[in-house]
């Protein structure tokens, strides 16, 4: 267990299964990331992902997994993002690894990242329509229609 992090952007701290989750104000996520990297030694960004809580509102949870090798501790940051025109600031300025992780989230969920250097699809074809990991996206996609029962 490491010291609790204090920062005005943190709305709530949760503990479960030995993992720490910080619920963060999405408007100040980059401030907090910079603070965690520079002062709290969370040098590694393990990954960014999202969860679609459709039809709840705010619809999306954007999840950041941080890791400090020195402290041997992991942190999870969680931002709630609205389903209407979802957008959040990009963390590419803090960790360069955020570049591809955010592109993947954009590709799969359609969440925009402000100030991202190259926000284009990464896994799906560039002209693909829709965002596959959204809950309202059918498993077979929109391209093929199957006769209904």
């Amino acid at each position, binding site marked *: 267990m490491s010291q609790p992090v204090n920062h005005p952007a943190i709305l709530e701290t949760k503990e479960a299964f030995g*993992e720490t989750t910080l619920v963060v104000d999405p408007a100040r996520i980059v401030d907090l990331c910079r603070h965690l990297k520079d002062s709290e030694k969370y040098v590694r960004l393990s990954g960014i992902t999202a969860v679609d809580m459709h039809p709840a509102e705010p619809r999306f949870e954007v999840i950041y997994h941080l890791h400090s090798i020195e402290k*041997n501790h992991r942190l999870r940051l969680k931002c709630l993002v609205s389903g209407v025109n979802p957008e959040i600031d990009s963390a590419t300025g803090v960790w360069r690894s955020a570049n591809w992780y955010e592109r993947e989230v954009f590709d799969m969920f359609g969440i925009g990242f402000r100030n991202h250097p190259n926000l284009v699809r990464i896994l799906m074809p560039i002209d693909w329509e829709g965002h596959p990991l959204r809950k309202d996206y059918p498993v077979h996609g929109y391209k093929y229609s199957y006769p209904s029962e």
Partner: protein
Amino acid sequence: MSNIKQSFEDHTSTIPAVQEIPATPAAPRRMTLNMGPQHPSTHGVLRIVLELEGETIVSAAPDIGFLHTGIEKEFEQKNWQQAVTLTDRVDYLANLSNNLVYALAVEKLLQIEIPARAQWTRVMMTEFSRLNSHLVWLGTHALDIGAMTMFFYCFREREDILRIFEMFSGQRMMTSYIRIGGLALEPPRGWQQVVGKFIKAFPSKVDEYEELLNANPIWMQRTQGVGYISLEDMLDLGVTGPMLRGAGLNWDIRKSEPYSSYEKFDFKVPVETSNDVWSRYRVRIQEMRESAKIITQALEGMPEGAWQADAPHVVLPEREKMKTQMESLIYHFKIVTEGFRVPAGEAYQCIEAPRGEIGYYVVSDGTSKPYRVHMRTPSFGNLQGLPTMLENTMIADSIAALGSMDFVLGDTDR
């Protein structure tokens, strides 16, 4: 026929000869080279757009996604136990590592205890999958650089490992052997002899590889000082695994955050400092020796007892009990028809896979299907370091450099 020929010549003659524009120091001539998607040395379907200045790479832009199969979406359609079969297909060289990390993540949510025998068997099997992966890496990487024999030597041993997988799970590659709540099957009778025979002979096989490569001038020239990328860049870009240990960072999740009783095993974390293709080769060779040590310890100290957790709501009952006891029949029916439910919550579990950190982020909404499974795969993170690594290197070195990253494209694209 002659008409066609005539018209072809007419047509070609109208195209003016390509004019060489003299290069000026201010604007050197650049060329864009498309490597892949079907390039033999990219080990999968990867396209890299290289911008060249002469033979020097100015910039490299990897283009991925050719093997995207929507596994994360498919997770949401299967029940928890069925989804184990999807984890095999993520990284087809380290399928048991993926089985293990998924099982551990779900068991974290279920809060069930796994018996020691199952844990030790899991460790043994994941170490075999590390050997398998490193052997394929060494064989194909050496093949890329021109050492043909290594490929045959490595695949000879890999074949033995695949036979062991088949003996345990019935499958050579898509094993699905590590299940939520324990193992898929009880370890087969006589496995000790087969594993014992293999592991006794294995160190001498590693000696053979080293004999072929360690003092080989071609191998040394093509690997030493090639593929440098600074440790800071790697940490910033999300690179993990043997790449970091080849740059002098002593970080291995098996030691720092032990899982599945790794803390009971005695092994070293090999670290090299030269931070090039050579050091990554050295790290992986030594890791193979350490894995062999772990397997030997597992073989000698394998605990007795159950191979599945005592959790009737998760683990299928024995066939005999199912036929004779009402309660077991009910559990069997429930698990088979709708699958077990996992309490609502979220968990992140990471392990040290052959390529680096695999992390599964699992979200449950309390039903019998995963709500969301995110895979943080090491190949995806590692590949992001490629442009930095290839900048200002020679194009001939790019094959050795990208081979040393040891990525699997199925793992990258999921």
